[in-house]
């Protein structure tokens, strides 16, 4: 991380409580373009809460979020999306009643004519089906019939669709919350490759993962959270593994 460059995403002093639970406590975070940042931490450390705040799902109680040096008031997910932030959520946020294509293009359907307001355009259904199929194929996940709704699909198939959806539309910042948790060996490989391609295209990438091997393989930097605080930062290399794990687990318990 060079101090001179304007970070693709910066979080400053982020705090968030849910009732009595302090989920985030003055967290600072920066990610450069072309960098993969791993966000690590125990269960319940506040990782998902942090990225939900960045994506506009929750509102911060205090703190600010900057994209390319510009402060953005993340009042809704639509704002975050407009600012170029794409997110794969831990709970996937899929539409069980729609087919993979419908899920893929939800909220940004290919449609025309372009002079109409977005909502009133006529969908180009064939185009959508075609390019959705292509992108899913690239992840090499076997899906049942194209027209099946995703509600009935296996855990891994669902996760693959969610990852494919966000990565296909990535622009400035991509956030992935445990993107490989339910994926098989081969599918995980594809997703790791995908993350590296995103980095090479200049995206600022945040990945949450509990799989230390994956983190060491792809991340340029790792921030560790514990009980809502960012407690440390390491370069993920095999020789640092033990250090990182002890940071995660914490000395005090």
């Amino acid at each position: 991380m060079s101090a001179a460059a304007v970070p693709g995403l910066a979080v400053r002093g982020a705090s968030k409580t849910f009732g009595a639970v302090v989920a985030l406590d003055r967290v600072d975070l920066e990610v450069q373009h072309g960098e993969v940042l791993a966000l690590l931490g125990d269960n319940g450390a506040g990782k998902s809460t942090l990225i939900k705040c960045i994506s506009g799902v929750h509102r911060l109680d205090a703190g600010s979020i900057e994209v390319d040096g510009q402060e953005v008031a993340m009042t809704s997910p639509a704002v975050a999306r407009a600012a170029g932030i794409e997110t794969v959520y831990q709970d996937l946020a899929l539409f069980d009643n729609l087919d993979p294509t419908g899920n893929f293009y939800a909220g940004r359907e290919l449609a025309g004519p372009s002079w109409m307001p977005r909502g009133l355009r006529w969908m180009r259904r064939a185009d959508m089906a075609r390019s959705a199929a292509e992108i899913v194929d690239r992840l090499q996940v076997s899906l049942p019939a194209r027209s099946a709704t995703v509600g009935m699909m296996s855990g891994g198939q669902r996760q693959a669709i969610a990852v494919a959806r966000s990565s296909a539309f990535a622009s400035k910042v991509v956030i992935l919350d445990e993107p490989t948790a339910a994926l098989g060996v081969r599918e995980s490989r594809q997703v790791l490759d995908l993350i590296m391609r995103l980095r090479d295209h200049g995206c600022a990438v945040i990945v949450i993962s509990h799989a230390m091997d994956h983190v060491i393989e792809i991340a340029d930097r790792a921030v560790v959270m514990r009980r809502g605080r960012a407690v440390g930062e390491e370069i993920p290399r095999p020789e640092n593994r033990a250090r990182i794990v002890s940071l995660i687990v914490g000395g005090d318990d």
Partner: protein
Amino acid sequence: MRLGPVLILAVLVLVLSASSPYFATTQNLGNVLAQSAVIAILAVGQLLVILTRGIDLSVGSTLALAAVVGALVFESRGGGVLTICVMLLAGAAVGAVNGLVYVFGRLPHPFIITLATLSIARGLALSLSHGQPISGMPHVVDTVGGGSIGWLPYSSFLVAFVAIVVTLFLTRVVWGRWIYAVGGNPEGARRLGIPRSWVLVSVYVCSGLLAGIAAVVTAGRLNAGSPTFGQLAELDSIAAVVIGGASFLGGRGHVGHALVGALMIGVIRNGMNLLNIEASRQLIVIGVVIVLAVESDVVRGRLEERFRALKAAGA
């Protein structure tokens, strides 16, 4: 769409044709279509609402209010187009109140606001009309509501038109897709930048607008606007959607479901009048037939599945 309810409707028609010589006459089929038109139109609106996991209890009262307002405007100003516009606007306005208060008042469920407007719109209709039916409707309204081409009532063309427009809207237009998305996963829709709030508002406005159209048909049929129109129409319209096979869980249903359900209700009521079934028995028969219709669809679906499993195991 599932074919079950259509089959059941067909069985019902066959049974009635066999038991009453009058049932399968063109005249009577025209009657059935005319009698079902209002429920069908309301049910299409209700379907949109149910697709987003909502419920609109106010449709019947909205119909009454729109009809009364229309009749008052016609009485004082005259003019067919104006009258129709006023009725549609009145309907849409109630729908807008439902949608806006529900969404931006962050109410936990649309049951509350639509129950409130069920009461308020009826009260307004009674106040405005001083409790009296107001006779007289412009010629065009009379024609739409009561006229027919041969035995086919105009209102059934209106229903067909509404059904086609809404179907295209739901399946081909972006906003229609968003309606399914919001119904399937409301929080997910928000996260993907779909304007969930406005999608929700829109379905209530559509439901209100369709209640306004239903008001035109009702007022035309009876050549009057009355504050007692549309009583219990909320139950009829919800029942039509559910009997037709749409799901209360959101995001699953088609216009076809609403139409088949509305026709089923219309056919049952018509059949009982034709067979001259005694009033209190009619209530019993309606209840039994509704359950049997839905139940036989369930059984059909299960048999099909069992059969497929057996075939697969045998192969």
